């Protein structure tokens, strides 16, 4: 479980997400692929936080250095923000899909590409 | 690894299997069964053995609980209850299980077989995982996670996905509507459940269940009565038990999301419901009734199971004395009643913790003394805000709708106004 292996997993998920976004016809599958890409980024952030070593780790005497040690968890904080934003985004995306479906009775992207009113 | 070896059961099995392990040697284990280099095999075998033990213990507990519930059910209704199979009817759940296994396994033609088969499994597995985190006694746990209680909350939300899958895989619209209603109920009650334990977490200072039990010099049911009440009612809703069992009540349902299941798949859903009751009781015991703490000569595991049995008795008692709520009443109760109680509880707990950051026993008693009057006051206020008292219903309007038989013709105009 080295850093390269986890980053390889993250890259694979991201690439699969890219394929999913560009090659499906239903909006909901596109949203799901975007969620996959978000998860790939979160995996990378956590992996970096776990495997890379901040320089001021060993001295934990003063509060300033304790704060520096805590900053090793910046990747985790990133992960929290990304998860929250992605959840909000998928909720709003689905609300838009509902509104679109109410008007057009279909969710095929090629049909919705016509921006007529 | 250190916390693994603190667990005495794991340590016994692992260190007797693995050789040349420094951690085991430091704890005084000498010879071992497996040759050197196979520590990974020892670890895997130990894990499998402990999982097998725990799962079997839980299933035996579920059997015992089914028997217990049917006997208590019967005594509440002045009957005897099952007493034919085995002494005192103790083998009745076994007979139930065998009967369920022999039923015919039909599936609707329209359904999606993969999802149809997967849904009951997804319902049962999260509940098994909940038992992995709970301390049943001193040093008696499978894994004392640092984020224990949050893990339990997270895993119980997975049952919503199982219900959605079961509803969709049944293939008919009525199942889908019933499943959607059940999931709306579950999601609405997750929020009070999560917020109500924040007071407990603030006082004990940790998410780990072992630390929460250790910090309960005064049981938290006394220190956080509002949290206990909200968590108890929200757990009842999550377990889909009365008074919240609209989705599975036999008298209410023309079609439900469970209708198209038969034989062992239905048995698995049934099992999941009872296991949810056990898991909820175990979590309530750990969080609010000070877990395995008790007085000395009786071992801590016995104390835990006694308290859990008490909570289970109260849950069964509520099932057979309270009436069922309608779905809109349930949702209104969650969002208008319980949610506001949790906010009041959170504010009060935050203020108290700001005053007494790491409370000693006397400070816990003082917190308890402050919490109970606020508890009664908030229930009274929220009761006023939420609903009409029965004697305030306007009976004259109802009289126009349901007229008593007289010689005069019914007042059709007033009736149509309603």
């Amino acid at each position: 479980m080295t850093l390269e292996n986890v980053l390889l997993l993250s890259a694979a998920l991201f690439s699969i997400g890219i394929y999913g976004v560009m090659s499906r016809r239903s909006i909901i599958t596109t949203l799901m692929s975007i969620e996959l890409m978000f998860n790939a980024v979160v995996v990378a952030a956590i992996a970096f936080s776990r495997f890379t070593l901040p320089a001021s780790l060993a001295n934990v005497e003063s509060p300033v250095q304790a704060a520096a040690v805590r900053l090793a968890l910046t990747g985790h904080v990133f992960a929290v923000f990304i998860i929250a934003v992605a959840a909000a985004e998928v909720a709003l995306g689905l609300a838009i899909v509902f509104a679109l479906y109410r008007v057009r009775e279909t969710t095929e992207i090629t049909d919705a590409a016509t921006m007529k009113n | 690894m250190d916390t693994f070896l603190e667990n005495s059961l794991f340590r016994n099995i692992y260190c007797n299997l693995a050789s040349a392990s420094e951690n085991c040697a430091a704890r005084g284990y000498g010879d071992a069964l497996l040759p050197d280099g196979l520590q990974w095999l020892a670890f895997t075998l130990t894990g499998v053995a402990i999982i097998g033990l725990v799962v079997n213990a839980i299933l035996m507990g579920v059997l015992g609980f089914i028997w217990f519930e049917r006997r208590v059910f019967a005594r509440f209704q002045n009957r005897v209850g099952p007493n034919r199979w085995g002494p005192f009817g103790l083998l009745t759940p076994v007979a139930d299980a065998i009967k369920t296994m022999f039923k015919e396994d039909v599936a609707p033609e329209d359904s999606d077989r993969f999802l149809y088969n997967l849904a009951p499994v997804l319902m049962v597995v999260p509940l098994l995982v909940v038992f992995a985190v709970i301390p049943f006694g001193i040093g008696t746990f499978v894994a004392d996670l640092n984020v224990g209680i949050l893990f339990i909350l997270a895993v119980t939300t997975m049952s919503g996905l199982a219900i959605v899958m079961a509803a969709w895989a049944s293939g008919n619209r009525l199942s889908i509507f019933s499943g959607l209603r059940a999931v709306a109920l579950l999601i609405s009650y997750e929020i009070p459940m999560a917020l109500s334990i924040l007071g407990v977490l603030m006082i004990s200072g940790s998410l780990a269940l072992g630390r929460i039990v250790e910090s309960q010099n005064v049981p938290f049911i006394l220190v956080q009565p509002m949290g206990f009440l909200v968590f108890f009612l929200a757990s009842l809703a999550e377990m889909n038990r009365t008074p919240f069992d609209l989705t599975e009540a036999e008298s209410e349902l023309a079609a439900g999301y469970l209708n198209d299941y038969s034989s062992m798949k239905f048995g698995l859903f049934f099992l999941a419901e009872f296991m949810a009751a056990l898991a909820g009781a175990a979590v309530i015991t750990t969080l609010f009734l000070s877990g395995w703490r008790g007085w000395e000569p009786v071992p801590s595991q016995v104390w835990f199971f006694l308290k859990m049995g008490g909570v289970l008795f109260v849950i069964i008692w509520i099932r057979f004395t309270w009436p069922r709520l309608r779905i809109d009443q349930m949702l209104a109760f969650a969002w208008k009643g319980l949610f506001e109680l949790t906010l009041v509880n959170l504010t009060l707990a935050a203020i108290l913790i700001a005053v007494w950051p790491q409370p000693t026993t006397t400070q816990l008693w003082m917190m308890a003394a402050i919490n109970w009057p606020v508890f009664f006051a908030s229930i009274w206020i929220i009761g006023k805000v939420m609903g009409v008292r029965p004697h305030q219903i306007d009976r004259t309007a109802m009289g126009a709708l349901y007229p008593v038989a007289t010689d005069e013709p019914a007042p059709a105009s007033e009736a149509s106004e309603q």
Partner: protein
Amino acid sequence: MGEPALSGLYEVSRVVDAAFWLFAALAIGGAVMVVTVKDVFKAAVFLAGSFLALAAIYFLLQAEFIGVVQILVYVGAVSILIAFAVMIIADVPGGSRPARGRIAAATAAALMMAALAFTTYNTNWTDIGQITDEDAIAGLVGVYYEDTSTSPYADAQGGTIRAADETTKDARSGALIDSTGAIGTLLIREFVLPFEILGLLLAAALIGGLALMLNPRTEDK
């Protein structure tokens, strides 16, 4: 100096590696099924499975809080939301057919994967596996031991390594082991502005969702 008692996970590192590859295969398999399956509901279920495998990987990476948040938010809420949407919309009757740009999409994905993999393997990461300094490893895994005479950190910055023997539980006081409190402190102190903006964004998402669904022209709400 004697052998330092490193974190005991080194004993079972083969199990940890095997578990990581298993969950990585599950996650990638689930993702591939999401983008290839025709039935949109099954794709949503496979997505939930992929999320679950990723949560297990977070636990293996000692990010317990993030693993639990992943289960709570993604498996317990986002997956249910997507499944709801699929059920209510009763999607394209033939399922989701792949669009015409499949070859281009596959090419783009493959190129992206190649670029990322190349970057990953050609960068000189400061990997914990490559660090032979036992003080640094002890600091990272949370076990501190007592020998400050040969530690370069003691000389360079003039501080000392906190010493704790095996029997005290202070060995687990490292911020990287019990991450929940440290994440909370970071959110309130160093990252308080993004935290508050996130609250604002979630409120905006809530209001926006409601505004999209409450349509005054139709009767349903």
